[in-house]
């Protein structure tokens, strides 16, 4: 469904991604882990072209999307993204956040958009908060609205950039529960996270990134329990203790 081939990215003279390959099939959950500064977030942003890759190809359903012939907006409409800091639009309500893309891009009539928005908010457990502004919601609630917003455009794949890292501990579970539920429903997801419990239970594959390269790739069992690489083992020991 979504594939990366030899992705390179430089920020000035800093070589952040050094030839990354990955392949996500429909219904897969790919979890990307690795020490900070290893390029996880940049990789995620390369996938939806928020950060255009300098070399390599991103293929969505076999079509190369990082190409001058393709508008990045068109790509992003098919790829949902959930940010570490939620980034809900602060001047509109939860419902309006979810329906903005439907109303302004898809030109869905307001009633239909609202119906869908309410459904999505109910699905993330926030049916009672449709009219709340982001500042009136807790971190966990904001992040769940952000997930509903990412789902509104019926994306082919949803990217999660450390969705629980900015949350107070008591809100982490509610967000992970929603994500787990999405995975069970067969949603294609790419998740950058340090939540190894989630990775173990939900991921199909784990990508271990270090210094801009894929150090190791495998099933959760392989990467978490029996890592081949010393770096991976050291990282897992540290994070699992």
């Amino acid at each position, binding site marked *: 469904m979504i594939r990366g081939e030899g992705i390179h990215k430089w920020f000035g003279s800093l070589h952040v991604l050094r030839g990354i390959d990955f392949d996500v099939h429909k219904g897969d959950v790919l979890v990307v882990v690795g020490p900070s500064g290893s390029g996880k977030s940049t990789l995620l942003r390369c996938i*939806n072209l*928020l950060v255009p890759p300098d070399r390599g190809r991103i293929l969505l359903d076999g079509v190369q999307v990082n190409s001058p012939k393709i*508008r*990045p*907006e*068109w*790509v*992003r*409409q*098919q790829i*949902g*993204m959930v*940010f570490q*800091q939620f*980034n*809900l*639009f*602060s*001047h509109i309500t939860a419902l309006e956040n979810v329906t*903005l*893309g439907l109303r*302004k*891009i898809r030109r869905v009539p307001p009633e239909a958009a609202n119906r869908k928005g309410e459904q999505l908010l109910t699905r993330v457990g926030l049916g009672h908060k449709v009219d709340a*502004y*982001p*500042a*009136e919601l807790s971190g966990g609630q904001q992040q769940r609205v952000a997930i509903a*917003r*990412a789902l*509104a*455009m019926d994306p082919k794949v949803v990217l999660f950039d450390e969705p629980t890292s900015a949350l107070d501990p008591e809100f982490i579970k509610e967000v992970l529960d929603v994500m787990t539920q999405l995975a069970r429903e067969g949603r294609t997801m790419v998740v950058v996270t340090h939540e190894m419990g989630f990775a173990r239970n939900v991921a199909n594959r784990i990508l271990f990134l270090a210094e801009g390269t894929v150090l190791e790739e495998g099933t959760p069992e392989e990467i978490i329990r029996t890592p081949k690489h010393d770096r991976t083992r050291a990282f897992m020991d540290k994070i699992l203790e």
Partner: protein
Amino acid sequence: MPEEDATPPALPRVEQVGEKIGAVAIVVGVLFGISYMLNESRPLDFAYMGERFPILLDAVQVSLFVTVIAYLCGMAIGFFMGWLRTSKRRALRGVASIWVEAIRGTPLFVQIFFLFYVIGYFAPRLDNRALLTGILALMLNTSGYQTEVFRGGLQSVAAGQVEAAKGIGLSYWRSMQHVIFPQALRLVVPPLTNEFIALLKSSSLLFFIGVQELTYRGRILSFGGNLLEVYTMVFAIYLMITVPLGKVVNLLERRYRIPGLGLQKETRVAPRRPVDRSSLTTRLLFGDAGARRRLRAFVRRARIVPDAPPGEPSA
């Protein structure tokens, strides 16, 4: 001194007390001034004031007309320039900063005269030269200040908002239209209100080039000799516009407040003891027992007074 560490009861807000005392002082001062005028000097001629007031009300319409037109045109320019100020391109940013620096770095008074003579040079036979110059000068002047207001507003929209707008697939223009501008506009309402009030006051400078606005007409009237009456009225008319305008905008802001954006909700009851920002002097004068105690402790520590006799617990 054990009571020093005990949680103090909710203090009266010393700043508020100070503010009220200030307000009372001003009112008393004004009353004194008026009574002085009424008794010691010649009383204010209220009949004269009632008779000439409509003339000044006509004149203030010119002030308002010039100000509103200049303000709105200046806003269009300021909005555009403010947006350029946030551009990624250096050249565009440069153009906008030159604009701002040139306008903010020179006195409005000089700008008015400069334009007056420039326009006179190129179009000597122009009708309404003064009025046009006036509008143009105020427009250019306010555009410089509004540029900075809009730049500030745009820059205070969090970077994450832009990223999220792009992230759901909005194009550059649509994310500006639906996310960035609506948020920025909310943040610029208070400074733009200030700018309008400032501009209205600045419009009085136009009397120097002969625009028949409030100050000009007041000055003409004052040649009749009733200086005090005339300028009291002029003074009052400016206030009648500026004070309510500020209040109304503030009211609207409260009415259409969005949680988490711009104006914050007032906390009715301070949960913790408020940070007392008033100066030590104020607090001592207005009876903050804690402050007096701390001062005594400080003085004792600094050994300005002799140590407490032995046997008594020290501070």
